[in-house]
């Protein structure tokens, strides 16, 4: 599983990144969590509100920072 966090590196993006790492650790999942800060890359996902959580190339959450528990549920749905 590849998880991407889109955002230019502001505080919200960092929090989403941290929450996602926590969620992955909690699930003891073998997933790669990548930060995407390049606007050219971000633009490919056609989203406007940062930060964005992308799981296996599909946009899951955009424009807010979900808590760890919500990310866990989102990942479980796609395992």
């Amino acid at each position, binding site marked *: 599983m590849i998880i991407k966090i889109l955002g230019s590196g502001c505080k919200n993006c960092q929090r989403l990144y941290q929450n996602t790492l926590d969620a992955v650790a909690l699930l003891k999942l073998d997933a790669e969590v990548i930060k995407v800060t390049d606007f050219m890359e971000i633009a490919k996902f*056609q989203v406007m*509100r*940062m930060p964005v959580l992308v799981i296996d190339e599909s946009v899951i959450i955009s424009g807010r920072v979900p808590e760890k528990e919500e990310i866990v549920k989102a990942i479980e749905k796609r395992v």
Partner: protein
Amino acid sequence: MLSDIFAKLNSWLLKMDWLKAIFDWVLLDLFGMNQESDAYASLSFFCYDIIKIFILLSVLIFISSYLQTFIDIETTKRTLKKIGGFWGNLLGALMGTVTPFCSCSSIPIFIGFTRAGLPVGVTFSFLISSPMVDLASVVYIASVFGWKIALIYVGIGIILAVIGGTLISALKMDRYIEKFVTEGYSDTDAFVNGMEKLSQKMRLSISWAQVKDIVRRVWKYIIIGVAIGALIHGYIPTDVVSGLLGSNHWYSVFVAVIMGIPMYADIFGTLPIAEALFLKGVSLGTILAFMMSVTTLSLPSLIMLKKVVKKELLTTFIVIVTLGIIIIGFIFNLIL
């Protein structure tokens, strides 16, 4: 009658006069401070402002985050696309005031708007008004300077955004948008991930999380801002301040705008300084210019903008906004 009620609400909820009364009682009656002393002036400013700002900040962020969960940027885009010309710019500017977003979303929004085929001027009207005018800063300005000035601030912010966007369109600046922004995309590719369905409970918890996050992030700047404001208020003689930034100096507006550019301060950290300067008799035009410069011309957002537009467009944007703010400052210093 109605205006009476409004004035009472204003004094209770926004100016929080009761808070001032409480601290006056503590400082003057309990600690026996001298009402004429510098220390009293500084301390009462500090206590009153700090508490007022934290109450206002929390309530306002909560309300505006809650409203934000209902505003869909995708709908904004589609609405703007239907309208062109002057009305497009005006609507773009108005949308900018009611669509709050995290500052790191401004570039993805720029890309989204441009791909949808929106005129470059409409996009810039949106980008100018969005950081400058938002609910939280307007209510805060009202609490410090009163509603008349808050409304004036909103009005001139929107006018600047409309004129700036119109000029950028007229100069055919769309030539200077980086190729990758539009290459290979048209609006038929439009973003498929619409708004999520949110429950009431989720909206409230999102808003509360936002309050905690922003308070955690800006409390230091607020304390520093209020402390500087308090020192200016208590210890710096009025004639020193007006000597530097008084309305009799033609250059005071320039100084204010230039000081504002590298400051990456939150509006909530900037306003206590503006408030203290205002109480020291610095004219309103100079103060408005300072606040607009801090919010709209911040260095980090200019660096981000550089990634999607060529230097011609970036320079035009900076020149238009800077000149606009300076002109606004001058006009206000002349008429008030």
